[in-house]
């Protein structure tokens, strides 16, 4: 048993580093991503969150289901879909007007607009630095197991600007 605890202490930093920057799991709360996540109202989905593409490569994609830190609550995580990236123009269905996304930000929405606090209703364009990881699979319950796809709802993205897909930044460096 002492060997077990020694191993536990030895592996703790590795565990923290891996779950922070490579891959982790998350229990999804709420109905904001219904029916993609929590499609069975009696069970919360356990999902796999891949973090390398955002935290190391800064490779954000429209249509990804993303885990991000809530802009107004530093300890709260949200699960939303990325609709638009920096410089894109997106349709703001609350204000009923096109919105241009500023540099370094993105537009996120829940798949279930009635139950989602997101860029439309609460936050506006959110900082890409708040992005934590990409939801790739549902791993529990067994009957919901499967991959979570990249998908973009129609008629939301008005102008796609590809400055954001070939690396970020530029223009403001050195100030």
């Amino acid at each position, binding site marked *: 048993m002492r060997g077990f605890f020694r191993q536990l202490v030895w592996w703790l*930093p*590795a565990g*923290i580093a891996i779950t*922070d920057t490579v891959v982790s799991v998350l229990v999804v709360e709420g109905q904001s991503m219904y029916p993609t996540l929590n499609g069975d109202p009696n069970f919360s989905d356990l999902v796999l969150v891949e973090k390398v593409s955002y935290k190391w490569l*800064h490779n954000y994609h429209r249509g990804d289901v993303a885990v991000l830190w809530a802009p*107004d609550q530093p300890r709260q995580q949200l699960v939303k879909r990325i609709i638009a990236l920096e410089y894109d123009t997106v349709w703001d269905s609350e204000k009923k007007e096109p919105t241009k996304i500023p540099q370094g930000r993105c537009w996120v929405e829940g798949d279930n607009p009635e139950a989602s606090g997101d860029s439309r209703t609460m936050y506006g364009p959110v900082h890409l630095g708040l992005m934590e990881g990409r939801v790739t699979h549902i791993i529990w319950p067994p009957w919901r197991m499967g991959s979570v796809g990249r998908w973009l709802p129609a008629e939301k993205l008005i102008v796609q600007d590809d400055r954001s897909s070939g690396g*970020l930044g530029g223009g403001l460096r050195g100030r």
Partner: protein
Amino acid sequence: MGAWERVRSVMSQVPSHVKVALHSMAIVYVVSRYGVFVSKVTGPSMYPTFVGRGDFVIAEALTPLWGQLKPGDVVICTRPVDPAESIIKRVVALEGSEVTLYPDRDSSEVRRQKVPPGHVWIQGDNLPHSLDSRVYGPVPLALVRGRVLVQIWPRLRWVENSVEEVRWH
């Protein structure tokens, strides 16, 4: 053979220098993310506090993690316009307080703006040469990575919380 013994037998096949390298990287990550880290300062935005030609500072991550930042603290923050980079600025106002915006390129009027919940207002000490909250607005606390404690290069000194630096904003 129990599950634990099986895990141990798999682990024992990993070469020891690989294990040592991986554990070292993990420990460096945990210490710098949740403890203290060294950061380089470039650019003129914090002059005269930092010259910005390769100054090095030590910052600690616990104060922002616990939400204990105060106006006047020098912080290191993920760059709001580019998440791949970091910036160094001074906290001017916390959530709930108001900041004054003086006339600039975008507006000829003096405006008041309230810092929203969970955000901080950051500015450089060198106002004419700083790109900061005056341009990109309040910054979520989750982007603040550390509070600067000490400058270690080119000279060794404490970095003070200085309300004087921000009083005239």
